C-alpha cells in the first residue's frame, strides 16, 4: 500500500478509519499524516471501514469483561469461552466487512456496558452478583485480565482469613465484661 499515491481524500478517510484525529490533508500536513498512518498500520490497529464514528471505543484495547471466578468446579472453563468468543467474533466481522452485521455490534457495545456481561455470564451472576457488578463499570481502558490466581489472593486463604477474624471476634466478645459485675469493684 503506497500512501503517497493516494489522494488527500483517501488519506483523510484512512485517518478516520484508524481513529486518528486530523485536520485537512494539505501539502504541509500530508507527510505528518502519512507517518501517523504508517505507525498505526504497523501497530496492527484494526481499521474500521464503517461509516459510524465510534470514538468511545479504543481499538487497540479490546473491551474484555473479566468475571471474578471462584474455583467452583468446571464453570471456569465454560465461562472463559464466551469471553474468548468476543474477540474472534469481532475480528471476523471486520474482515468480512458486513456493515449491517457490524452495526448492531457497534451499537451493542455502545450501549451501557453493564448489559453485556449478563449475556455472557448469566450463570455466574446469580452466584456472585457483587463481583459481577464491580467489573463491568470499568471502561474499556482496562487491560484484559483473566482470573489469574497468581495475582489474586487464593480463595482458601480468604476463607482462612475470614475464619481467623471471626474466631478472633468471638474470642473478644466472649471475654467481654458482663454488665452484671461491677468493673469498679475494688479487689480486696
Amino acid at each position, binding site marked *: 500500500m503506497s500512501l503517497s499515491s493516494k489522494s488527500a481524500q483517501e488519506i483523510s478517510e484512512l485517518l478516520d478509519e484508524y481513529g486518528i*484525529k*486530523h*485536520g485537512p490533508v*494539505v501539502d504541509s*500536513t500530508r507527510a*505528518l499524516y502519512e*507517518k*501517523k498512518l504508517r505507525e498505526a498500520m504497523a501497530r496492527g490497529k484494526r481499521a474500521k471501514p464503517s461509516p459510524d464514528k465510534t470514538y468511545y471505543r479504543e481499538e487497540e484495547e479490546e473491551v474484555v469483561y473479566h468475571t471474578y471466578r471462584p474455583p467452583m468446579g468446571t464453570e471456569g472453563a465454560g465461562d472463559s469461552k464466551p469471553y474468548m468468543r468476543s474477540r474472534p467474533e469481532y475480528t471476523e466481522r471486520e474482515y468480512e466487512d458486513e456493515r449491517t452485521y457490524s452495526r448492531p455490534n457497534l451499537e451493542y457495545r455502545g450501549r451501557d456496558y453493564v448489559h453485556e456481561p449478563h449475556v455472557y455470564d448469566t450463570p455466574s451472576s446469580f452466584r456472585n452478583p457483587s463481583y459481577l457488578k464491580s467489573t463491568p463499570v470499568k471502561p474499556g481502558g482496562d487491560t484484559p485480565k483473566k482470573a489469574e490466581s497468581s495475582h489474586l489472593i487464593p480463595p482458601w486463604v480468604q476463607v482462612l482469613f475470614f475464619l481467623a477474624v471471626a474466631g478472633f471476634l468471638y474470642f473478644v466478645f466472649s471475654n467481654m465484661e458482663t454488665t452484671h459485675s461491677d468493673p469498679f469493684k475494688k479487689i480486696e
Partner: protein
Amino acid sequence: MSTTSKKHQDFVDEPMGNKAVTALPGIGDALGTKLQKQDFDKAYMVLGQYLVLKKNTEQFTEWLKKASGANSRQAAECTESLHEWCNNFL
C-alpha cells in the same frame, strides 16, 4: 514566579504580526534557519501550521521536531507559546 522566559512573555503578550520565525520561543537561529528553508519564514506561518493541525499539540510538536530539528524541550516551548497566544488573540 513564572517559569516562562522573557521571550515567551514577549511573544504571547502581543499580536505576532510579521515577526520572524526566530521570535517563537524555543526557536533559535539554527532551528529558525531550518524552518526558513522549508518556506516557514514568518512566525505566523508556523502558527498557520498549528492551526491547520487543529491545534493538536501532540501532532504539532511532532511536526515541529521533524521540520526544525527541535528537541522535546524546544518543541514544547514553541507549542506552549502558540497555544497561549491563541488563547489570547485568536
